[in-house]
């Protein structure tokens, strides 16, 4: 009887552990759930337009993913500008003359943010603002410029 009980417990234990392991794999590896907040910091970037950029889009330096777009909203201080919060890995250091631009992967691919590091000595810390930005290129805008012959 007692050994049967132990077997019963073990069986349920194994089942629950495997289930929780799978759940953990799904949420942490795939769902990117951060239990302890992760080793990240946030900086702000102000754009004229971030049309097409989505929350969770990747932030890259030289093609290497170094973070994600945490949130997108309007700038509370400057009306009509977009403020994007970038969540970057702690190991990535940014200078204060870094240039952030909204780029498109391929012609119709996802939008992402490309950071081009500058040469300044002063770094942007957590909560800092990236001033040099290039907005997303609007394909329709470009096409209409081309059609109406206002290409400069």
């Amino acid at each position, binding site marked *: 009887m007692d050994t049967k009980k132990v077997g019963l417990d073990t*069986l349920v234990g*194994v*089942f629950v552990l495997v*289930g929780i392991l799978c759940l953990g794999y799904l949420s942490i590896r795939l*769902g*990117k759930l951060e239990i302890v907040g992760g080793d990240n910091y946030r900086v702000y970037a102000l754009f004229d337009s971030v049309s097409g950029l989505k929350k969770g889009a990747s932030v890259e330096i030289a093609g290497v993913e170094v973070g994600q777009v945490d949130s997108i909203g309007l700038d509370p201080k400057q009306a009509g500008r977009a403020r994007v919060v970038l969540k970057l890995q702690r190991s990535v250091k940014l200078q204060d003359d870094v240039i952030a631009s909204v780029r498109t992967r391929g012609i119709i691919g996802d939008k992402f943010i490309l950071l081009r590091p500058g040469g300044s000595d002063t770094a942007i810390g957590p909560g800092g603002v990236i001033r040099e930005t290039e907005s997303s290129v609007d394909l329709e805008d470009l096409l209409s410029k081309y059609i109406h012959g206002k290409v400069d």
Partner: protein
Amino acid sequence: MITLTRKIGALTLAGLTEMGRMFNFILYAFYIAIKSPGHPRHVLKQMIFIGVRSSFVIVLTAAFTGMVLGLQGYYTLTKFGSEGMLGVAVALSLIRELGPVLSALMVTGRAGSAISAEIGIMRISEQIDALETMALEPFKYLVAPKLVASLLALPLLCAIFDVVGIWGGYLVGVKLLGVNPGAYFGEMQKSVEWKDVYSGVIKSVCFGGIVSWICCYKGYYTGHGAEGVSRATTTAVVMSSVMILIWDYFITSVLL
């Protein structure tokens, strides 16, 4: 004309009574499960029956579901030259829809029918009446442990289903059809959100409740004789499968 009106009235009343009885049943089951949960060993036994014994069939169906998703997804995506998105297609359809629904359907077929037959036979052989005569609460021994166990076991089974299915898709997509393994998992990690995972978990908890609710109810109020039990078992399985799919639609429209 009058007889027709009377029949419609009788049917409506019968339907409403049935619904009310089902609702009372689940409320009382939750009340008992919280108030006097009984020995955890009862729940443990049901966990074995509903969870552990179902895991083999879950793994088997999950593997083949994932593999067929990999196959179908590949042939669709290759038309657009975007086989790299195969991982996303497999993972999202598994985590959001197929995992919770198929695992719940498998549990309905495997454990739900058995639950309803077990309780039904106890009813017709007057064992439930015997419990009541001895002033023992039948819900405490028959319904509450099954309810708790299925609420716990279904999300776990669903998670196992998802993971096995994703690896099944990997097997076909990457090993057999030659999709880039980095793209398979990389795109998957980029596209699957925490929201997708928890909505799947919420779904499977609800389905666990539905399965044990309907199967226990149908067994508890079974008809007379062997025929009654067989009818109760059939309706329990059919009704819970249908309810799972209906509820799936509504919960998806709320969570999305």
